[in-house]
């Protein structure tokens, strides 16, 4: 090895190749946006879990005599028409929004990733057919599809998770397929194919590790949209059933009283907005830290 072998300046000779996760964590730590985003989401999760400790009020039981109070020392965010403490309902409200959205996003992204990779790897008629079917599903407005599914099967959380999966899997497949298509023509995939490895083995060993960053960013972004969608569903009366505390439902319920107790509507709005901003910041931060082009892929 003659001295001429100039190691390119940028690759610092680090010790044994760090495991992928630590590498990803180090890149993540470098992006402030991602940290702020994840911090906000963490706070929301904590608040949702520790709600009983944070407030002594029962989010469901109302006291008619205490109805429509403005913010006061006893009720920091005032009370709604039924005399229930708005702050308590906001604190508990996170549970429904976070619980259902995390579950729905997990199902959607998992399903979308598998189908997306298979479509990219398999190609040919399978890819075309899948593309055509997905396009057809995408052409139906998501709200209508959700309404039909929820009306058909009722408004239980499990049904909503299924409904959201039906609506969002096509979009996840499209994003993951795009990312996988960038990996498939690479020579190391061709080499694996030349060896005769099975499609599943290629997918697991060669493709998936290279698109995990896209999948994670897609998860964070999709979670933010699912939270929005769930709150819209509740707002229209197709999501959480009264009296469960849910932000979308609270905005709907207190909307008529907005002139009297604006805080009853604004508190859930601020909670919802901060959670989704957090998720978006996390998605943007992750995308930048791992060099994933999130915006171009996800419409």
């Amino acid at each position: 090895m003659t001295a001429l072998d100039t190691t390119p300046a940028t690759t610092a000779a680090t010790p044994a190749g760090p495991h992928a996760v630590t590498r990803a964590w180090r890149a993540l730590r470098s992006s402030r946006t991602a940290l702020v985003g994840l911090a906000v989401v963490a706070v929301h999760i904590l608040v949702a879990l520790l709600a009983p400790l944070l407030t002594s009020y029962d989010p469901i039981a109302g006291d008619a005599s205490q109805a429509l109070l403005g913010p006061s020392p006893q009720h920091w965010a005032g009370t709604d028409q039924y005399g229930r403490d708005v702050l308590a309902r906001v604190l508990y409200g996170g549970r429904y929004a976070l619980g259902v959205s995390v579950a729905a996003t997990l199902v959607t992204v998992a399903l979308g990733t598998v189908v997306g990779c298979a479509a990219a790897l398999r190609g040919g008629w399978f890819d075309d057919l899948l593309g055509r079917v997905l396009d057809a599903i995408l052409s139906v407005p998501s709200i209508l599809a959700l309404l039909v599914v929820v009306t058909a099967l009722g408004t239980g959380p499990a049904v909503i998770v299924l409904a959201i999966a039906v609506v969002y899997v096509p979009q996840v497949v499209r994003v993951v397929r795009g990312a996988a298509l960038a990996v498939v023509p690479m020579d190391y995939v061709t080499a694996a194919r030349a060896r005769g490895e099975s499609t599943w083995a290629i997918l697991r060993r060669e493709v998936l590790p290279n698109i995990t960053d896209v999948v994670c960013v897609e998860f964070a972004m999709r979670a933010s949209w699912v939270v929005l969608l769930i709150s819209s569903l509740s707002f229209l009366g197709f999501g959480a059933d009264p009296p469960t505390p849910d932000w979308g439902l609270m905005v709907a319920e207190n909307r008529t009283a907005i002139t009297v107790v604006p805080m009853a509507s604004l508190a859930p709005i601020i909670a919802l907005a901060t959670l989704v901003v957090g998720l978006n910041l996390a998605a943007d931060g992750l995308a930048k830290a791992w060099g994933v082009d999130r915006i171009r892929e996800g419409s």
Partner: protein
Amino acid sequence: MPDTHLPGRRSVLAAGAAAAASLGASWLLTGCTGAAAAPGLTAAALPGTPDPGGTLRIARPPASDAETLDPASSLSAYEYLGALYNRLVRVGADGELAPDLAESWESDAKARTWTFRLRKGVTFHDGRAFTSADAAYTLRHILDKATASPQAAVLAPLVDPGTLRTPDAHTLVVPLKTPNAEFPSLLTHYNCYVIPDGSAKGIGRTGTGTGPFKLESFAPAGPGRVTANKDHWAGRPVLDAIAFYSVADMSARAGALLAGQVDLLSQTNLDFATARVVAASDRATVTRVKDAQWYVLPMLTTEKPFTDVRVRQAMKLAYDPEHVVKAALQGAGTAGWDNPVPPSDPAHIAAHPAHDPEQARHLLKQAGHEGLTVDLYTSSYDPLFTPMALAYQDSAKRAGIRIRVRTAAADSYYTQIWMKKPLMATYWFTGRPVDQLFTQIFRSGSSYNETAWADKEFDVVLDRARAETDDTRRRELYGEAQTLVIERGGAMTPMFADRLVGISREVRGYAEHGFEFDYLSIGVKGA
């Protein structure tokens, strides 16, 4: 990789601040007007006299997409009728009959033939004079099969359209098939507004009547407008015009009132939460119409265990109506004590058995239904069903009766639950004349008999009362009928509730009784 560089620390804080600021500002802008104490529900609309002129804007639910101005039709646009037409006889503020287009009326000794003396010098909006021919035509129009008027079911057994006589231009003679002393009260229903002779085909759109307002424009399930009839026989109305907006969605109607786009919500019984919001707002308030809603817990007398009268009596003795009024209505109503005739009706009798849970338990043991358990169906169709059901459940527990409250879907409540389940919650508007009430809802085989109750003795008493011309004697007979319903009927009437009407703080002279408000005297301050 394109650099989607996003805001650094400085602007992330900005993001948080921007979000809060933009939302917070609007909050400060409106000044948090949440009154410190819970806003009490004011008793009636603001007193004082209205300024002359001005336009009253009413938000109303459309009867249906095919609604019409023909008063006799089941799809009549209810709010327009009081403005455009008059009836022969109307219900006065005190609940007694009062003259309208008929100045006076009397019947023969056996209350079989009724003669109405009609008002002179009254003209329709198109200038034609009002005569007895119009009155006769109106009755024939109601009884005509093609009109399919709901009121036909009440009048057809009494009146034969062929036998109507108009001896002169201002006298109408109505011979009845069977004697009925209460016949004039049956003409106060809003289906009985008088329409010009021969106008059946066009009346649905023209709305030509003798009322205080003339029709300017009308679109079914859409906007409409009526203007003051300057030469109205009872004097010019205070308002210049009334604008009607049909808004199907209840919260949208409330929103419009709170935003000051309309002055009155008609046919809308505000639920307590919305009522509190409207009362607390600075643009609108809530006015109450005493005992306007009659709430019932009908038991199907043909379904076990309610076939046994002792069980029915036990169910009635087991609960305390005063408790239900306090819990469900926070006092905004009066206890019913299972008597369907409201206190405001002259024929009302005050006598009723006292709340006696021990006697209820004894009766149940006797009937072999120790520890009775029964389902009580309710829904969100009306805001008070569920609170009433829960209050009844709570009160009946003391008598050892276990009630399971089941919530059914609102849009199929009156198709799958009403008159099908043994015990459920429902309601009616009050203001029906006592004869129409008993004939339509309690007589055996009547179309709205929600308890499927068939009691021979009750039917006989009802027929004798109808034929009794002497008022005091007739009132005693109706009293007996009420006692029979209370003792043996299947309908539990826990309460009569006030209807909460959303109205702008600018409106003056709003007085409602017998379904409608007084179109003449209503007006707007600062018109």
